[in-house]
């Protein structure tokens, strides 16, 4: 690996002041992505600040009626927490669709948001990648781009965000609580990750001297009508070609509220609130869900190896909404899609 030094943070304010003082330092929690990137010589922090001793593993009810999840809560503990499985099963399902049991035992909730793209060219230091080395170019655009973006990409970067959890958090309009040198702030999930634009090296709007301390879930978790549908080349332990987090609130025959977020298609979880709004007041139907999919996928454009994802995404949106409407969410264990 590379040479670096290692310190532990005593508390959140110590963590913030240490990262502020050391521009070449990085925080480490689960390490499941960062250590791999260091082995690949993609990330080379001069110092690792171990934050695993910080008291950020509580899951607490909020006054608003939601839940506040400590940033260091392991993915596995979160996925099986009774408050999550009962009130936010979309979060649990998305978590269990991702990684492996071992990695979920290691990975933290906050770290999940900060994982980097798995674009092949980002990892291969012999190729051009504007995210890894700004200004070097993007070999994915003319290369093997099966796993790359169909929405929101730029001429400098067509990478996608790899998280499953984040797709569910986007659909639920989670809030990211951070602490930094200038104090604490709350970032709406839609504003947390960025599109690549001409600065693809910057994944998120988290400042360099800030640390995620908690993720807040609003009261509405769509526990009755939801589905997390993940389409991938291998049925387990693979990143999404396309994934859909769907939540519906149905009263009588009519849809009162709808959420749809896509994973595997863009540099951040993809949501189009106007499309969701178009469902309000309608009865659930394949036709209505198809119309929503068309709005969400407006402007989608693929490359040599991934244009199939546009139609795949359309069908996955319709199927996930049908699963949500029928209260038959996609099982993450029995993989048949019904």
């Amino acid at each position, binding site marked *: 690996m590379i040479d670096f030094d290692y310190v532990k943070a005593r508390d959140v304010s110590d963590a913030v002041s240490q990262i502020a003082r050391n521009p070449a330092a990085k925080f480490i929690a689960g390490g499941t992505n960062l250590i791999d990137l260091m082995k690949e010589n993609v990330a080379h922090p001069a110092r690792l600040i171990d934050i695993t001793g910080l008291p950020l593993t509580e899951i607490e009810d909020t006054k608003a009626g939601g839940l506040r999840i400590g940033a260091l809560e392991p993915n596995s503990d979160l996925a099986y927490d009774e408050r999550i499985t009962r009130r936010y099963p979309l979060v649990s399902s998305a978590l269990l669709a991702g*990684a492996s*049991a*071992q*990695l979920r*035992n290691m990975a933290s909730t906050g770290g999940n948001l900060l994982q980097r793209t798995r674009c092949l060219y980002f990892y291969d230091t012999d190729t051009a990648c504007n995210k890894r080395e700004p200004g070097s170019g993007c070999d994915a655009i003319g290369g093997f781009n099966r796993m790359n973006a169909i929405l929101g990409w730029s001429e400098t970067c067509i990478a996608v965000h790899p998280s499953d959890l984040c797709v569910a958090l986007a659909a639920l309009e989670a809030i990211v609580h951070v602490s930094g040198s200038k104090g604490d702030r709350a970032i709406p999930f839609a504003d947390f990750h960025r599109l690549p634009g001409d600065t693809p090296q910057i994944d998120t709007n988290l400042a360099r001297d800030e640390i995620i301390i908690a993720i807040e879930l609003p009261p509405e978790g769509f526990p009755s009508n939801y589905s997390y549908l993940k389409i991938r080349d291998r049925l387990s332990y693979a990143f999404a070609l396309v994934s859909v987090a769907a939540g519906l609130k149905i009263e009588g025959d009519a849809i009162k509220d709808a959420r749809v977020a896509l994973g595997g298609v863009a540099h951040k979880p993809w949501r189009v609130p106007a499309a969701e709004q178009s469902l309000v007041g309608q009865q659930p139907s394949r036709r209505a869900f198809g119309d929503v999919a068309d709005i969400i996928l407006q402007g989608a454009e693929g490359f040599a190896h991934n244009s199939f994802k546009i139609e795949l995404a359309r069908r996955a949106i319709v199927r996930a909404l049908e699963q949500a409407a029928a209260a038959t969410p996609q099982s*993450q*264990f*029995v993989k048949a899609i019904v």
Partner: protein
Amino acid sequence: MQGRPQAKDKPSGPGLTPKLQVALRVNGVERRVSLRPWTTLLDALREYLDLTGTKKGCDHGQCGACTVLVDGRRIVSCLTLAVMKDGAEITTIEGLATNGELHPLQKAFISHDGFQCGYCTPGQICSAVGLMAEGHAKTADEIRELMSGNVCRCGCYPNIVAAIEEVMHGTLPGSSP
């Protein structure tokens, strides 16, 4: 405890970040070792503590061959820095037998032919111990999904699932998982 030459202790030379004292309780025995911060738990076990039962497969968290239990939870040791586990309880494949008697999962892997080359087996068995402690798998589908972090190139999956099912449902003679 100093083990073999420090093959994985790269980069080497003077002027590097000094070694740190790390205390690990490995298979019930306190082990103290002096490590650079970049030494993974996997390399610490294999290269410094002479516990080579834990295997290095991909070294990138994708194959599960290096699975061990840390404080009772299964993790991949290749993506774990040993210095971050100071004070932790580590269980490796060498620590599963008691008083010379194999762990029920070890017996079941033998009786079901749950391996051919055997390279993934220590990780498979440690992962299965973790799986059973977690208690979330009941059916064969659930075992398959929750063992998907352990890859077997010989393709012994049906026999691995059968071995785990047998121990999980307590049908192995004389077994108490």
